[in-house]
């Protein structure tokens, strides 16, 4: 089976090995094409973003304004902070030059003279590896001013590795840009979108590390080749990071649409101790979990997972066996989003803490069944009402975990339900006279 992103070639991360295997050839051929041709190729290839939203990469590039004197930027997102997601790290370690080459091609396609590869702060080692690869590429004249000579083009761009400071929210594209600018990692209100108003107010495109790494093979082998791999609506290979109760956890590059059960049993070695699966989260901790008894026939691509009520996310598959305490799992997931909520907008700032407090109460055995409905209501009140997608990421696990595993939660709550809230206050709405409009 063909490996596009993580080829099984020894020492592929070294520049000379990469060059021996036709490295930087794609860039060379890209410079013989117009930018429109490249964007068109990527569009036709059907490549969809690997950062979670699975948005068409070519379409995203085409949003960049053409007739605009402002400098343009490319940000490559390697913040990879979602629990259960660890696939970009493999690229940084094993295939950094393909990432760099993809970055160069993307820069050329969108007209960016500077690209920032934003890597999460905890990846000290991988930042060093990437920096080493980048230094080598600069030295050989593949990046920077010298690339004009190397590729015989009048285009050149610079690539910078930017180290994050340990905030999950900085993986959100607009707070990633704020972080690069040296601002607080707060997501921006959209619109305006990055293509209009991105880094330092200039047109910017943000792509995931894995997305960008797919670019050189597409340029080299053509869109027809790529679009034929895996599921037609979400073609190519996907890096699946499998973790949890499996015998052989790790990252597996497989065609999209591979059966989830195949990934778990054929590639990840099955469940430890041969136990049954209770729950699988297919795309990183924020994606809706699937019941273990409903995994048959589930294919791993964006459209198929949508059909079964989940999403591909970052392809981080978390497997939980039959003995897992899902109440504690959910409390732990909720704690993560509580801890990582940036605190900018109200629903997420207040809601994540509230959900965690209730879940902790459930774990202590002090919950009531009313709390379960309340949790779902809170999750629904957060969902869709926030500045960025972290609100949804915090809400979905709670909403879907309780909805799909209600019996697990009912088992730990008391049946006796007091309908009176403890701190019931007199309802002011009914006593208040209509009051004058509020002044600013």
């Amino acid at each position, binding site marked *: 089976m063909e490996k596009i992103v993580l080829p099984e070639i020894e020492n592929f991360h070294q520049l000379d090995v990469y060059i021996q295997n036709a490295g930087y050839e794609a860039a060379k051929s890209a410079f013989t094409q117009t930018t429109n041709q490249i964007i068109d190729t990527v569009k036709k290839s059907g490549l969809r973003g690997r950062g979670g939203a699975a948005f068409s990469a070519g379409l995203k590039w085409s949003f960049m304004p053409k007739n605009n004197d402002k400098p343009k930027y490319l940000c490559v997102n390697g913040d990879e902070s979602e629990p259960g997601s660890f696939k970009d790290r493999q690229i940084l370690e094993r295939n950094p030059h393909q990432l760099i080459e993809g970055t160069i091609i993307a820069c050329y396609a969108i007209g960016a003279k500077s690209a920032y590869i934003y890597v999460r702060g905890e990846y000290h080692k991988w930042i060093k590896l990437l920096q080493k690869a980048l230094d080598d590429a600069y030295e050989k004249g593949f990046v920077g001013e010298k690339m004009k000579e190397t590729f015989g083009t009048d285009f050149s761009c610079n690539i910078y590795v930017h180290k994050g400071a340990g905030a999950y929210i900085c993986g959100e594209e607009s707070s990633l840009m704020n972080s690069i600018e040296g601002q607080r990692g707060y997501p921006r209100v959209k619109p305006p979108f990055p293509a209009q108003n991105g880094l330092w107010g200039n047109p910017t495109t943000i792509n995931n590390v894995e997305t960008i790494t797919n670019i050189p093979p597409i340029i080299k082998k053509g869109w027809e080749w790529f679009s034929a791999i895996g599921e037609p609506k979400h073609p190519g290979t996907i890096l699946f990071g499998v973790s949890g109760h499996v015998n052989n956890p790790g990252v597996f590059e497989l065609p999209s649409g591979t059966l989830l059960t195949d990934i778990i049993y054929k590639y990840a070695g099955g469940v430890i101790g041969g136990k049954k699966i209770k729950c699988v989260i297919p795309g990183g901790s924020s994606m809706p979990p699937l019941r273990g008894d409903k995994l048959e026939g589930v294919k791993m691509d964006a459209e198929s997972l949508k059909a079964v009520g989940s999403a591909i996310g970052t392809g981080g598959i978390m497997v939980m066996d039959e003995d897992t305490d899902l109440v504690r799992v959910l409390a732990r997931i909720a704690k993560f989003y509580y801890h*990582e909520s*940036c605190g900018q*907008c*109200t629903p997420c*700032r207040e809601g994540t803490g509230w959900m965690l407090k209730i879940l902790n109460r459930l774990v202590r055995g002090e919950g009531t069944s009313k709390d379960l409905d309340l949790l779902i209501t809170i999750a629904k009140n957060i969902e869709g009402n926030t*500045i960025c997608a972290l609100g949804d990421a915090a809400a979905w696990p709670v909403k879907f975990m309780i909805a799909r595993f209600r019996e697990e939660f009912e088992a730990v709550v008391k049946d006796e339900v007091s309908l009176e809230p403890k701190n019931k206050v007199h*309802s002011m*709405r009914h006593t208040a006279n209509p009051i004058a409009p509020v002044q600013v």
Partner: protein
Amino acid sequence: MPKIIIDGKEIEFKPGQTVIQAARENGIEIPHFCWHPSLSVSGNCRLCLVEIEKMPKLVISCSTTATEGMVVQTQSEKVIAARNAVMEFILINHPLDCPICDEAGECKLQDYTYQHSVGESRFTEEKNHKEKRIELGPNVMFDGERCISCSRCIRFCDEIVGEKELTFIKRGDRVTITTFPGKKLENPYSMNVTDICPVGALTNRDFRFKSRVWEMAPTKTICSGCARGCNIDLWTRNNEVLRITPRQNEDVNSFWMCDNGRLNTFKHVNANDRVSGPHLRKEGQLIKCGWDEAYAKTLSELKSFAKDEIAALASSSLTVEDTYLVSKFVRSTLNMKNFDFVRKVVAGSGDAILIREDKATNAKGFELMGVEPGKSASGGGLKFDEIISHIESGRIKALILIEEDLIGWNPAFEKILSKLDFLVTISTNFDASTSFANVVFPASTYAEKNGTWINFQGRIQRIRPAVTTIEMERSLDGMSQSRWDKFGTDFDSWGKAKKNDARPTWKIISGLASAFGTKYKFTMAEEIFNEIAHTNPLFTGLDYDVVGENGVQLKTETVKKKVTI
């Protein structure tokens, strides 16, 4: 003009306006905390979520640009549900301390809780705790628990003042506001953050715990701090001024005012050193006397000097009306030439935001009314500096000093005033200058009278009485009233507030003129203003109603040259 439909009502908007702006201009209030008309959009409170046709999710109206034909729902079931949800989220960790919170009564959160919240809380957990009573700066106190993280104060400092002093720290529901390391919230406009704070998180340290807001009566008037003439509300309770807040006027001060104006322009009104009743110097002491006695004494003293031995100096913060009558009295009744006003310009004290170097409120008014030496009909009077040097050389022996503490302004004048044979002052407070006075008339402060000032732009603006003197009655004089004022009974202590026996300068001058045998018919400031409007082309067509709450820009350029009194 393009149109959008909000709640079924078709309204016009200016291209580029956001939905919330368009709605607001058409009288539709979309609830909001973080949005402020003068600040950038931050979109964090999520209260202004509205439903727009063809959009999959609710959107925030503060950052959504209105487009032709857009159909907006601000009251649909979905919107109300989202609004209730946001209110619930904000309230879960907000302390229920309205009874001891200064903001209560003028709190957006409180108002919206009445209007848009379900009234009951489903939150049964322990509320978050944060630091309280943090002195962010000399004038502003911060309560972390009350803060709803709307970032208005941060944006105000960054965008309006241009001083990066405040920032958020921490994440999630631990977020709180602090000053940057080594910095304090001490810009000259810092206290505006207490006005724009939609809750009681930022409070005015000078006013904290002084009064519930509904016990006070706000009076729309003008700041007396400098030539800008910021529009303000003067808040009084029990006949005492307790605080000043800025009042929006886009032509003058937008929503803002400086801390100096807010803190240092009202305390003299309440002070114990107010002059109450006329005073005569007897055996070295200023002794209270009757008005007639004071007028008679002034008359007899002034008559004992030759005309060129007398001079008059007035504060350039007199109202237009006071100026008019003082000028008339000095030039016609006393037939004196030596009359000037005191310029109070502090070089380098101004800035590009609001604060002016000219500390007087009506210097432009004096200029426009031609009250300068040499501009009077008879011409050829002495200027301020000449008057001072003539006093020093003994050529001027008597001085009428009107609403101006010369010595307080510049201690060097002590030597000058001590040379006078006769000094009559019209003063609001006993001060260094009155200690040399032979006669002191009690003047009403700007907080106790009607009048107009002309600011540095040539904009005429009204001041209104907020505090009563003994000749005034709050309800009869149409002054603003708090609930206390309206519903108080004889048994209530606030009905027995201290009142001073003071009069506006024009009235004192009127009495003095009468002693000299000249009768002015004026019974209120408005009548003087009407006479000015009929005689001075600059004021043609103006009256108090036309000047209104926000003032009127005078056409100073075209008329200026013709003006003389």
